[in-house]
């Protein structure tokens, strides 16, 4: 079955073309049907491939489609690679992607048909790009998908293009990604120069003993900068919260199934190189941790329901990078998976709330939604418990795995990570309480319109909620039940060579029990505190002051970037525009004007007088004669 892996990206591509080209012809129903069916078909194929991959003794399969770049000694083929890691990502992307597609048919129903079709074609293209990214058997295919998701995020964040702010957000996402992509591309070139190949298999065998530590550190750092752009880490994270400008299902798609997981995937895929470059790993761990705690602290004081979730994604991605940095590759991929479920669930739940509130996103004006929309409430509740890391929801297992590896690496990493997860529990329960508990604080008109969302919205929510409850049991840690970590056994072949070089340490079982119980108790305490503190919230008592104001303004990072980077560049561009451009214009326009002037003069020679022409001809002949004879 894995020979037919090209079908997986093919279906969304066909969907994109059919819907995109037929956007003025297709009805909404047909568009929705094609959009969902293509991704569902990919999901079915992915499941079949997964079934093959999980049989014991499966060897990675490379499916070569055609020669892509073939010049001189360089031979890059358009090839897909099926192994444990890519097949797991296929399931996440197509599975969560299908649910988001189904959800979108209802959420976007008020759009005009051709905008509806445009939306679905972009959505399919997004899924296609992401599939290309995870399926590629070399860094070039990965990079094509990498750029593809960047483009699609731009198109979808700026989907409502008549709004200038949304366009600005889309541009910001695109440009920030480009900055990372530049480093990523240089990293790829360096790999090519160093190893003479871009195929994963070749690169990973050659990098063991084939390159010195500084070279590997350089390459891995450059690749990691690319990942900071795509996966929203310090310093390139500010685009992700602004990406909320797009429709809510798009946010769910970007945050859960595609785009931001690309960086994690890329590093997990290149795990051998990273394991051989401990310096880079340390950088990744520190940056991941800083991002996790910074974003979590910002999320505490956000009042936009989607912004809270966006910062929470940034923070969760930080945990994943922390996992990668301490060598817990399985833990990071595990967290990607569980995060995909509960973050998609939370975003789609937020979309359902926004839908019911008629576009209102400020949680201060919500409250008491529990009795109006029970399905959304209960599923959101599951998502909150999962992300906060409460036993036995999915987030508990994956986060616990990352944190215990961090502890084995360095207890400080664990302590700071635990602090971040306490923040997470606090802001998530604040969000839950403000949105669903207490009294309704919006206008009477809004209250009148409150309703539970239709089935196309609630069914994906219920499915995701079930996944968010049970996905964690795929990774039961060793100390609770030996040999029950299904995911680790499944992924072991991918990370085998890394484990040989440097086995990721985990603490002694006794210590792990203590760590888990301490973190669970603390999280439970903070959750209850957050719950009770905001349960009876009646409205903003006063303007935020002091530290809260700094958090509300996101540590002023945007303002800092604005002052340090944007404004100087603007000033330079203004200067160039005003003075240098004028000089260049003068030269170029002068050349043009000279030609125009001289042709105006020469035109006078064309009098149409036959006699004059003949005379000139005779003079010419005489001159030629003279030249011939005398010179």
């Amino acid at each position, binding site marked *: 079955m894995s020979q037919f892996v090209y079908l997986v990206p093919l279906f969304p591509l066909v969907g994109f073309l059919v819907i995109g080209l037929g956007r003025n012809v297709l009805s909404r129903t047909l568009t929705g049907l094609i959009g969902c069916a293509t991704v569902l078909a990919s999901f079915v194929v992915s499941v079949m491939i997964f079934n093959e991959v999980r049989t014991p003794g499966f060897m990675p399969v490379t499916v070569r489609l055609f020669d892509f770049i073939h010049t001189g000694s360089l031979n890059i083929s358009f090839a897909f690679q099926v192994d444990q890691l890519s097949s797991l990502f296929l399931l996440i992307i197509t599975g969560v992607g299908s649910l988001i597609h189904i959800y979108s048919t209802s959420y976007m129903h008020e759009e005009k048909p051709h905008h509806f079709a445009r939306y679905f074609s972009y959505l399919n293209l997004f899924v296609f790009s992401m599939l290309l990214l995870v399926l590629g058997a070399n860094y070039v295919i990965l990079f094509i998908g990498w750029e593809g998701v960047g483009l699609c995020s731009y198109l979808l964040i700026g989907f409502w293009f008549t709004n200038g702010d949304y366009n600005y957000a889309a541009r910001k996402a695109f440009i920030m990604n480009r900055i990372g992509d530049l480093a990523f591309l240089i990293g790829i070139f360096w790999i090519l120069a160093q190893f003479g190949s871009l195929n994963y298999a070749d690169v990973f065998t050659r990098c063991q003993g084939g390159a010195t530590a500084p070279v590997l550190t350089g390459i891995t750092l450059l690749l990691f900068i690319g990942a900071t752009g795509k996966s929203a880490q310090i310093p390139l994270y500010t685009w992700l919260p602004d990406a909320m400008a797009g429709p809510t299902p798009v946010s769910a798609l970007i945050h859960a199934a595609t785009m931001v997981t690309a960086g994690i995937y890329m590093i997990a895929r290149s795990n051998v190189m990273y394991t051989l470059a401990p310096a880079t790993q340390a950088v990744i761990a520190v940056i991941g941790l800083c991002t996790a705690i910074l974003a979590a602290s910002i999320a505490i004081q956000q009042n936009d329901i989607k912004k809270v979730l966006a910062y929470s994604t940034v923070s969760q991605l930080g945990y994943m990078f922390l996992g990668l940095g301490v060598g817990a590759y399985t833990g990071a991929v595990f967290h990607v998976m569980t995060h995909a479920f509960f973050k998609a669930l939370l975003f789609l739940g937020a979309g359902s709330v926004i839908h019911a509130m008629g576009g209102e996103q400020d949680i201060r004006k919500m409250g008491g939604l529990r009795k109006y929309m029970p399905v959304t409430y209960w599923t959101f509740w599951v998502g909150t418990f999962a992300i906060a890391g409460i036993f036995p929801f999915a987030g508990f297992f994956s986060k616990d795995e990352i944190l215990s590896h961090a502890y084995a690496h360095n207890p400080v990493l664990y302590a700071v990570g635990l602090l971040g997860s306490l923040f997470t529990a606090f802001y998530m329960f604040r969000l839950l309480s403000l949105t669903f508990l207490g009294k309704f604080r919006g206008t009477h008109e809004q209250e009148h319109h409150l309703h539970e969302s239709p089935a196309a919205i609630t069914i994906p929510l219920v499915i995701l909620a079930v996944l968010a409850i049970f996905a964690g049991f795929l990774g039961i840690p060793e100390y609770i039940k030996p040999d029950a970590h299904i995911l680790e056994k499944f992924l072991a072949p991918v990370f085998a060579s890394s484990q040989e070089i440097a086995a990721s340490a985990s603490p002694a079982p006794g210590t792990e029990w203590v760590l888990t119980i301490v973190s669970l108790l603390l999280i439970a305490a903070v959750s209850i505190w957050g719950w009770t503190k905001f349960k009876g919230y009646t409205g903003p008592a006063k303007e935020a002051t002091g530290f809260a104001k700094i958090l509300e303004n996101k540590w002023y990072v945007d303002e800092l970037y604005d002052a340090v980077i944007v404004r100087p560049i603007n000033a330079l561009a203004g200067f160039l525009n005003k003075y240098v451009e004028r000089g260049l214009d003068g030269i170029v326009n002068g050349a043009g004007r000279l030609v125009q002037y001289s042709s105006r003069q020469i035109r006078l020679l*064309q*009098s*149409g007088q*036959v*006699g004059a022409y*003949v005379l000139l001809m*005779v003079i010419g002949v005489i001159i030629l004669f003279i030249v011939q004879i005398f010179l």
Partner: protein
Amino acid sequence: MPINNYIFLGIILFCIGVTGVLTRRNAIIIFMCIELMLNAVNLLLVAFSKMHHQVAALHQGAASTVGTEGQIFVFFIMVVAAAEVSVGLAIIVMMYRNTHSVDVNFLNRLKH
């Protein structure tokens, strides 16, 4: 007869032709002057070829045909000139039909 006389006659005929082409405005006269120039050249070709042939005959015997090529050229020129005249006259006829004149200066309105 010395060759110089032919050369002088050729130059005179050619100059008359050039002057005519340059100064006259009647298309037919211009045409005739062009013919005059062509024939001045023809005359020279014949004269030079004759002279060349005599020189060659002196060295290689009376049966030699060296130096007669010039006279063949004359026929080529005549044929081409005849073809040119047939086209040119057709143009002049059309010009007369359209403008009731064969004044070449009239043609400068073609540029508008």
